[in-house]
């Protein structure tokens, strides 16, 4: 993985580019439109996997967000994948270089008539050809890196709570939030109303407490309101809180308990929504409690997109005490995976829930998922042989983008931490890898 700066400017650039992609997709032979949706996750790289379907996957540098798009062959005018028996073709390219091909979308929409993406096993280039007006043809030969398969394990079916609404409904609901707002809390209020509330980091303690209280009283207007008045001295006083309440009737499905609430990054959510809105799709949100990943899914007949976002953990005053009860709850769900090693992670339910596999090409195990991990306790995401320098390079680069440990936790590397849980809670995600190096 490459180093990439995770400053917001870049993020904005990416997401801006991204959502305008849909119109272009319509003129492209292979519509990479939605693929670029992945960029909103501030990714270092994009994995393309040419199988029966084209899959585009990416994970952000702090590994708190993952996206995966699958394109049915019919999405394209022509789609030719590797023949059965061959190794599937895949590559991982810098998101930056992929986006540079589509730098000026306005221009592209005007001039590009079709787009052809090709990759063959022999050449070490991903070739993107744009056929433009006046017979002009642009050919980009993009270099890519050693292939890795990026796979997150997630299953919407095990999430107890489900919301489904036209993207427009949610898109309009997030519109009033200030652009700089980092996180938003999604919860279920009384009468199955869906509530979106800005999450203030400065008022973190107060907000969390408020959320807790709100949850107890069922997120209604009658009980104690957020922010709590209990602590007038802290910064909560100066913070503005925006709350949107949407009636359950605007949703196609509300299957959630009153009082549940999760907090996740708004930026990624916005990007996802604007894509789903331009595509006029419905968005399904599958979620569990705080700290557990939320799955956002969009689907139509030609494409299938999943975003997995980390959610903010509840304040955890006695982490050791809470371990035990949690241990019991996820266990039955996990059996659905029927992967033998999962028990090793049962202590950490996120990690048993989602595991990233990054292995080099040719390692057949890369697609058979977690069961191949030789020493799950230490490095379940990666076989020792594939623990290349490249992987190590990732680690420093993820540090700036890594959220504070108490907040979002890595969806993918968390499991590495399992044996190292210290009383002070999760340590920085990246520490363990060097240990696993030996």
């Amino acid at each position, binding site marked *: 993985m490459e180093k990439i700066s995770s400053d917001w400017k870049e993020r904005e650039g990416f997401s801006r580019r991204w959502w305008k992609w849909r119109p272009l997709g319509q003129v492209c032979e292979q519509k990479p439109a939605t693929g670029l949706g992945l960029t909103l996750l501030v990714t270092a790289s994009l994995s393309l996997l040419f199988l029966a379907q084209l899959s585009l996957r990416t994970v952000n540098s702090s590994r708190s967000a993952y996206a995966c798009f699958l394109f049915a062959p019919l999405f394209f005018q022509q789609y030719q994948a590797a023949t059965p028996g061959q190794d599937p073709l895949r590559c991982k390219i*810098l998101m*930056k*270089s992929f986006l*540079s091909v589509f*730098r*000026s979308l306005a*221009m592209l929409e005007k*001039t590009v008539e079709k787009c052809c993406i090709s990759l063959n096993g022999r050449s070490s*280039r*991903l070739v993107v050809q744009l056929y433009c007006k*006046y*017979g*002009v*043809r*642009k*050919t*980009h*030969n*993009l*270099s890519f890196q050693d292939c890795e398969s990026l796979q997150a394990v997630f299953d919407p079916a095990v999430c107890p709570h489900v919301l489904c609404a036209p993207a427009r409904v949610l898109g309009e609901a997030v519109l009033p939030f200030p652009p700089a707002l980092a996180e938003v809390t999604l919860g279920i209020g009384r009468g199955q109303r869906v509530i979106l509330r800005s999450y203030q980091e400065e008022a973190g303690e107060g907000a969390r407490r408020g959320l807790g209280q709100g949850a107890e009283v069922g997120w209604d207007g009658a009980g104690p309101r957020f922010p709590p008045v209990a602590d007038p001295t802290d910064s909560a006083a100066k913070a503005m809180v925006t709350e949107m309440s949407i009636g359950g009737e605007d949703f196609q499905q509300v299957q959630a308990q009153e009082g549940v609430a999760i907090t996740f990054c708004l930026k990624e959510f916005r990007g996802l929504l604007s894509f789903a809105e331009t595509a006029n799709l419905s968005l399904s949100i599958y979620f569990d409690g705080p700290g557990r990943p939320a799955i956002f899914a969009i689907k139509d007949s030609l494409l299938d997109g999943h975003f997995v976002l980390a959610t903010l953990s509840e304040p955890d005053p006695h982490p050791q005490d809470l371990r035990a009860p949690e241990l019991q709850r996820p266990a039955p769900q996990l059996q659905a995976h029927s992967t033998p090693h999962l028990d090793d992670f049962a202590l950490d339910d996120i990690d048993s829930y989602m595991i990233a596999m990054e292995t080099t090409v040719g390692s057949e195990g890369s697609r058979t998922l977690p069961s191949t991990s030789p020493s799950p306790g230490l490095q379940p995401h990666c076989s020792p042989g594939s623990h290349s320098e490249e992987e190590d390079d990732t680690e420093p680069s993820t540090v700036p983008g890594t959220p504070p440990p108490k907040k979002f936790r890595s969806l993918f590397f968390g499991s590495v931490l399992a044996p190292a849980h210290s009383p002070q809670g999760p340590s920085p995600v990246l520490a363990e890898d060097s240990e696993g190096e030996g």
Partner: protein
Amino acid sequence: MVTVAELSGQSEKSGGSRSTSSPVFRELRPGPAQRSGCWHLEHPSGPNAPWTMPLLTQQIPDENDYSLVASLDNVRNLSTILKAIHFREHATCFATKNGIKVTVENAKCVQANAFIQAGIFQEFRVQEESVTFRINLTILLDCLSIFGSSPMPGTLTALRMCYQGYGYPLMLFLEEGGVVTVCKINTQEPEETLDFDFCSTNVINKIILQSEGLREAFSELDMTSEVLQITMSPDKPYFRLSTFGNAGSSHLDYPKDSDLMESFQCNQTQVNRYKISLLKPSTKALVLSCKVSIRTDNRGFLSLQYMIRNEDGQICFVEYYCCPDEEVPES
């Protein structure tokens, strides 16, 4: 105390009482010397003469003493062309009776020339056979756009430009809506400019394209590439622009029968590389132009000629010359 803006507005009222003060028009604000009273000027033709060109004549009564006098109803016809070559601070100006040529160079490898022919000016007089001076182009452009660089409907800025000769500043009189600004820009010792010796008889390949087709290509050049490789060939790929950047290589192919192609005269396959950092500034000219002629000679030197149509529909030319970077490695 009168500002320049008031100066012309009040000129008729105060016309009778002007007296000569030192010709300080470097600043728009009246200097300390003028603070005591109005900014007085004496018109040589007499106190009641109309307030038309007082500044011009007050210093040098005889216009014939100027080695260069040029006036223009719409200053943008000049400033636009100069912007097309503004990639370095300083420019050398050559004026002959045919017009003015302004030259900007960089790294002894690239040269841009803007030709402003005498016909663009409403008045154009050169006393000597040729007049040459070097000037800070940035300042010149700042002065030319002192009334704003974007056009306001219905208002034009008029320019009168005078140069007295070697060692004297270039004087600019700009007038808009009755307001006159006087600028004096010090001139510098002219430097010798490069002679690219680009002779049309040595031209091997020549392509004329509608600028529209190149505009996007140049604005999106992969600047992580050190060079821009230009392939011109009578056979495929006919005309190709290539970059070799961090992300990989890119090729942009123009078929010879494309509607963008006005003329295609390629005799021999030529592949030359040019420093992208040197060619990138030509985007400024490209953006303004309607057509571009791309020529390479037997040494691989590149000539880019841009045809620019000004607001009055007149045609001007801007030309870029560039040396090839190095021999293309055989691969």
